[in-house]
Structures are given as structure tokens and as C-alpha cells.
């Protein structure tokens, strides 16, 4: 049964309160458009977030939702999905929320492959607390808390997710609704946890962080689209990605020919190729891959959990409290 929804069905009555021009608006629209088509009964959808600008997201979705505490959304969502595997559970998180305070829950949710879809709105800054550097900010960034430049070497969220055994890892751009919806659809179809890094512009505290990927004059030479089963070519086919000694390189296709260019396959079990691709760019500077890096099958945690319950019930019969209370020896006093 498909359900006929429109975007409006997923708009809550709350006024949307991000700064005018914030990338979060576009992502919200993409998610609502995706939901309208995805055919998931609205009452079965749960959005969970931590704290941050991005984390206001659930308030704007006319679904069930929880705006929880900073960094803990992946854990709370895991509880939701593990308790009720039939629900469609989504986490919305910022780069501070997911990678700074919440890093541990994120990596554990990914390795467990619990059925939650994690959207990381990466604006490379702490928006809500007014502009401190985040774990994805470039080293040397000057902010209120780093007036002489940050000393932190940033994470590459895709590399980190792959290192944490994630089964589905993708990257997209706030402005590109079509691509975003494509990624959301694939994540939804994936069994288990899915991680999507969404480059999101914070026009107030970190404007133009992704300009190399979005500006008309540079985007072709900087957007590397990963497409399943296709050669990794970009810049109008002039450039391509090749792999050697376990590492990915950009090659001039005219010079080396298309044969050296890698054909993308996100479904290979070994994440090493995906990892190599993730190292092409550290942050959105220069040619940067977008698309699905990894998409492999592994049993979902919540399904396994249900199976153990079914197996136990089959083996022992449904639970009988009276007999549990008699686990230890009993005796009768008359």
C-alpha cells in the first residue's frame, strides 16, 4: 500500500526559526519531499535530534520526534529502533553534536548496524552557541574560542564512519535537493544504520564554507560524483579517479586514458576502497567525492534482537514468571 502524502503533510505547525538563508531550510524541504514520496505511514516516523541549530529539525516535522540532549541522539534512537523495529527512525545532528560530544554514540550505532538513519548537517561550525570551531573546522580557523587559530586537526566524517564499520556511508550537499533525496532514499532502503554527511551552509557564522563545491565557476572541477557501476569521472570527463597502492589519485583522463579510472562499486564488502576515496579531500576543498561510498549488507541489530526473542520463545515457550521465581530450589512450609 502506498500512501498519498504531500510535503505539507510533513510540515508541523511550528514556525521555522533558522536564520534566513540557512542551509537547514533546503535540507528540511528535501526531507519533507522525500517523506511525501517514501510511503512510510507518517505515524511510524520518528525524528530524534540532540542540541544545535540542526537539532531543531524535529520540531518542524509533523511526525513523532524528540529534541533530546546534546550528542545523545544516536543512543536514544538506538533504543527506539531496538524496541520497535517497525518504526522509521531518523537522527538529525550537527557536526558538534554528532562528532564532538556525541562521537562515541555515533561510532557505536554505526558498528552495530541498528536500523537508524543518521543525517549529519556539517556546517563546520557550532552554530547555536554562536560560532566556535567544530571537529570538522579546518585547522587554523579563527573563532571566538580560537582567536589565534584552532589547533585541532579535523575529522573526515566519511573516513571516521568507515573506520567505525558503517555499512552505509554517503555525502551530499544541502543545495542539491535531487541528490539529497537520492541519498535519503538509498539510506531508507538500506537495512541497518546509514550515515549521510550533508554539507550545510551556515551563512551567519561560517558562510561559503562549501563555495568551491557550489559556485558555478568551480563546482564542475570539484564535485566528484560517485555513481554505482560507473567510472569515477568528473570535470566533464576530463578528470578521473584511479587507485594505486591502496590510495586514490586524480588523473588526467586525456593523458592516461579512461582505462586507469576506477569503476565505483559501493557494495564491495571490504571498506578499504571507499576509505581511499574518502581521502581525496579533507574537507570541501578541491575535488571532493559526493554520493554513496559504501552500501553493504549486514544483519540489522534490531532484527537480530527480535530473532533472538523468537528463538528463545520457540525453545523455552513464552515466559512464565511463576517458573522463573522458582529458578532456585524451593521448599514448602506447611
Amino acid at each position, binding site marked *: 500500500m502506498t500512501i498519498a502524502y504531500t510535503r505539507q503533510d510533513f510540515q508541523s505547525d511550528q514556525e521555522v526559526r533558522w536564520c534566513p538563508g540557512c542551509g537547514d531550510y533546503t535540507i528540511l524541504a528535501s526531507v519533507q519531499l522525500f517523506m511525501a514520496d517514501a510511503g512510510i505511514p*507518517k505515524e511510524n516516523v520518528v525524528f*530524534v535530534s540532540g542540541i544545535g541549530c540542526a537539532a531543531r529539525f524535529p520540531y518542524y516535522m509533523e511526525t513523532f520526534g524528540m529534541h533530546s540532549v546534546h550528542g545523545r541522539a544516536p543512543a536514544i534512537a538506538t533504543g527506539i529502533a531496538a524496541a520497535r523495529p517497525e518504526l522509521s527512525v531518523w537522527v538529525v545532528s550537527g557536526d558538534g553534536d554528532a562528532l564532538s560530544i556525541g562521537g562515541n554514540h555515533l561510532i557505536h550505532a554505526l558498528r552495530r548496524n541498528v536500523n537508524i538513519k543518521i543525517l549529519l548537517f556539517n556546517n563546520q561550525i557550532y552554530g547555536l552557541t554562536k560560532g566556535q570551531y567544530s571537529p570538522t573546522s579546518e585547522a587554523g580557523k579563527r573563532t571566538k574560542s580560537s582567536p589565534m587559530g584552532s589547533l585541532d586537526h579535523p575529522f573526515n566524517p566519511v573516513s571516521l564512519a568507515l573506520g567505525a564499520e558503517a555499512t552505509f556511508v554517503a555525502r551530499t550537499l544541502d543545495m542539491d535537493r535531487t541528490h539529497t533525496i537520492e541519498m535519503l532514499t538509498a539510506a531508507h532502503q538500506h537495512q541497518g544504520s546509514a550515515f549521510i554527511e550533508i554539507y550545510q551552509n551556515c551563512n551567519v557564522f561560517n558562510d561559503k564554507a562549501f563555495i568551491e563545491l557550489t559556485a558555478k565557476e568551480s563546482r564542475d572541477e570539484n564535485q566528484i560524483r560517485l555513481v554505482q557501476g560507473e567510472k569515477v569521472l568528473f570535470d566533464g570527463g576530463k578528470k578521473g579517479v584511479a587507485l594505486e597502492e591502496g590510495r586514490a589519485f586524480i588523473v588526467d583522463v586525456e593523458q592516461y586514458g579512461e582505462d586507469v579510472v576506477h569503476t565505483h562499486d559501493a557494495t564491495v564488502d571490504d571498506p578499504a576502497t571507499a576509505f581511499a576515496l574518502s581521502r581525496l579531500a579533507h574537507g570541501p576543498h578541491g575535488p571532493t567525492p559526493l554520493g554513496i561510498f559504501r552500501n553493504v549488507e549486514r544483519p540489522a541489530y534490531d532484527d537480530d534482537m527480535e530473532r533472538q526473542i523468537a528463538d*528463545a520463545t520457540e525453545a523455552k515457550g513464552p515466559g512464565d514468571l511463576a517458573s522463573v521465581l522458582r529458578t532456585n530450589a524451593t521448599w514448602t512450609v506447611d
Partner: protein
Amino acid sequence: MAITQDSAPPISDRERRQRVVIRFAGDSGDGMQLAGARFTDASAAFGNDLATLPNFPAEIRAPAGTLAGVSAFQIHIAGGDILTPGDAPDVLVAMNPAALKKNLDDVMPGGVIVINTDSFEERNLAKAGYETDPREDGTLDGYNVLAAPMDELTKEAVKDSGVQGREVLRSKNFFALGALAWMFDRPQETTLDWVAEKFAAKPEVLAANTAAFKAGYNYGITTEAFAHSTFEVPAADLPPGEYTNVVGNQTIAWGLIAGAQAAGIPLFYASYPITPASDVLHELARHKNFGIKTFQAEDEIAAVGLALGAAFVGHLGVTGTSGPGVALKSETISLALMAELPLIILNVQRGGPSTGLPTKTEQSDLMMSIHGRHGDAPLPVIAASSPGDAFDAAIEACRIAIKYMTPVILLSDGYIGTSSEPWLLPDSANLPSFPTSFATHIEGKEFMPYLRDPETLARPWAVPGTPGLEHRVGGLEKDQLTGDVSYDPINHEVMTLLREQKVAAVANDIPDIEVEDDADAELLVVGWGSTYSATRAGVNNTRLEGYKVAHIHLRHLHPFANNLGEVLARYPKVLVPELNRGQLSRLLRAEFLVPAISFSKVQGLPFKAAEIKDKIIETLEMP
């Protein structure tokens, strides 16, 4: 398997004792916990009333033979109604010199000491810190020493069983157990049946343990020494019914199962292992056929988050831990309180602060339970008072959490969690039932997730999967009706008061305090939690000496029962024994302005009944 009393052997010319305290002590590797547990089961089967106290060495396995490596298990058996595992053992089984050294001081003057002479060789004596052999230097003067070369006798007994090498001496504890079984006239079958079932898959071990046990029993029969130290502890006159022997970490798990059944919703238990709470996770993990989901999380913050997530979607979310873990959960408990979702936080308390004394008991997390959150953040706090009571306390926590849509802190401690007592099995038919009613449809125009039940002040529990009730909860202050985020000053005050009043309203839903009263008592003893047995015994013993003392024991620490203030006001003196630095006593002073006197003990050990008695008398005699 129910063992009825008729299987007990006939009574002979044994020394009749109303109560005996026995302590098994040996190296961690000597199987003393197992021996104690078997003796306990046999005593239960015999029909004694009993209470037990295991005492493990501190977390890290210490080198064999050292004082740090001594493991002990104490059991108090009696014909009458007893409450504590006993203050001082009448009988000490010491499997090696370290066990003797560490425990001898506690033994009653004139008590019986059973020792394994084979272990009293030089190296072991040195490890225990003995410079001379205590068997020979007068150390044991005044005790009744029963010595047996247990290593040798065990080796001899098991030689045909098929066990080899190191395995041989593993049966030594069964030899000791056999000897004690003879001394106290315990039914042999209870132990032998257990061995047969437990080691069914390892026939040599089964044979060895059986042989060692019988050898010990027969050694008792045939040996002079033992023959003159036999006791008869009569079966207790307990209320009729079916009994079993339980430790608190079991019963609290079972109580949670019963609570979920009473509520008609699935149990979701998320935890991160920590001493002494881990066994609750282990126990629940065994019962997946109840539809229970257990989840070993990456840390305590994740565990409470998981339980809260499960609660949001309609499960009975529970997270169990000990003090350091509760500290970590504080922020998320506060979220549960703001989101007004049911959640149970079990704290099996241990010695603090910081890592403290992880294997020891203490009641020092009471203040944190009540005040350990930022903001004005009240929630109900309930304490179990014994292994058996833990079952009921857990059910009560479930009831309140769901009815009032609130997180509840359920307090147990290391003593309750790991010690055992006989427990009259509840009649399944009479177990409480409080079916959950989820919100199913919109009342009025719009769904109002914070519209309250006028009596309980609880908001509706509307779970995903219910069409039309889509809504958002969160940690920001909420509008008192719509639940939307609200920064309105007055709304914040209203909501703060509503949260306070909702929790306060629980007081109308719990029984009044009943006083174990001596009509014109001068002194009221107020206890809570695991001190119940020692406090009750202490009070009883004081009364036996003619003093007038009243006693109450609190299950509800927040809110207090409605009549508590009035009860306290009745007595000139109020004494509050606690295994902390006076935390309940401070709460009573703040709430009722009574000059409660704190009796504090922070040694990682339970109170002894005698300590309570002495303190009561001292307090009574104070001007």
C-alpha cells in the same frame, strides 16, 4: 523442584541451638561461595530461617594464599524469625591460614574452627603473615578446633572419579561441605541432586564432587572430634507457603519482569556492566522468551538514552547501574523528567565517592538521587529493604513511573544485591496489575501532549504508530498545554510547580507509615534500604532488654509518606541509622525540622544488630 521437609534426617543427641552463624572462608580459588550457597539451599530445605552474606575479595584477583585473596560466605540459620546474616560466626571454616587470620577475630569466644591442616605449611603461613603456626602458638586457645587434612582426604576420595591434576583439589569444598552437613544435620540429597544436575555434562566432576561430599559427611560420622560438635538447629516456624532462597539482584530483575507484566508492556533493560549491578543485566538477559530486550550499551549515558528511547515508544524503559553510572546519567534523567516519560533508574549502590569501594555496600547515593540534577528536578525515589523486598520495590517503581509519567530512582545496594534470604513466593494470582493506557485518539481539536490528568497530573503517553498523535518532546521548557517550546517566564514557573506537584502527589498514592510501636516509646528508629534486617533485629533485641523503642522503615524516600511528619513528631528522640554520613537524617531535618540524630557507619559493611542496639541504648540514655 520443590523439596519438602520430610526428607530431613531424624534428630539425634545433638546440641540444640536456636540460631547458629557459620562462615566459610578460603582462598578465592577454594570455592567458598559455592559451598556457602549449597549449605544455604540445604538449610532452606531443612526448614531453617536464614540470611546470608557473601564477602568477595576486592575486584582484582589477588595472589593465592594471601589475605587479599580470601573469599568468605556467612550464613545465619535459625529456628526463629531472623533478619541478619549474624554479627559474629559461631563456626568458622578456614581452608587456609589467610582465611583463619582474616576471620578469627570475628568468631564468637568458644566458637568452632574447622581447618584444613594440609594448607598450614610454611609458604602459606608466611603469605598470611603468620610467623609461627597458629595451631601451635596458642592463637587458637579457647576455640573448639576441628582439624582435618582435607587435601589428602579429598584426593583419596576422588581418586576413582576420573578427574586429574589441578582438578582433583577443586572438590575440596565439597569435602568441607559434607563435614558441615553432618555437623548440622543437613539433608544430603539437596546438595547431591544439585551436583547431579549441575555437572550432568561433566561426569568426572560429578563423580568427584559426590565422592568428596560423601567423604566429608562420613568423616563427620566417623571422627571423634566432629562427632562431639554436632548441632541441632530446629526448623523455623515460618508462615506456610512455598519458599525459595533469593539474592536481591535476582529479585529486582524478577520484580521488573512482574512490573512489565502488570503494566502489559514489554520490558527494555539497557545497562553498562558495573559492580555490583551487572548481575541484574545477566539475569534479565536469560529471559528473552518474555519478550524482554536487554542491551549492553557502550556506556551509562547511552544506556539511559536507550531506555528513554524505548520509553518514548511505549516500552517499560529501565536502566540499571551503580553510583558512578548514575552520576553519568544525570543529564538524561533530567531530560526524561522534562519530557515526562516513565523511566526507571536502578542504582545498586556501592562504597563511594569516585570508584570508592566497588565491591562493598553503602547507602551514600541517597542525596544524589534526590538532588543530583541541575535545575529544580524532583522525581520519586524508592528503596528496597531486603532481597525479598526488592521484588516488591521494583514493581512499585514500575507502577509509579507509568502512572505519573516520571523517571523513578530505585535504590538497592551491594548488600541487598548479593546477599540472600528465604523468600515466601508470591502467589502469581495476587501479583499487582496496572494495565497501561496509551493515548489512542485526539480529545478536542488538537492533540495536547501536556494536557494533564487532573488527579495524577500525568500527561498522556502517546506512542509512535498512533495516527494523529504525532508530536515532539524535548528538553527545552514546554508550554503547559501544547508542549511547544516556550520561553515565557510565567509558563516556566507554572511548569516548574507542576513538575513538583506531580511528584508530590505520589504521596497520596502510597501507604501511610505504620509504626512498629512500643506505645510510649521515647525513641523512634527510622531506617531505610538494606539496614532493615539489622535495624529490626537491633530494635527487637533492645526491647527484649526492656527498653521502649519504636521503629519505622521507609520505602519511599521522595516524596515521603503523608503521615511521616506527624509520626516523627510523636517521639522525643529520632535516631536514623544509615550506611552514609547522615543523608536521610538531613532530609528529615530539612523537611520536618526534627532534630534527628544520625547514626552513621561507612565501612563498606552492613550494620550489626548489636551496633544498632548499643546506639539505641546510648541515645536513650543521653540527657
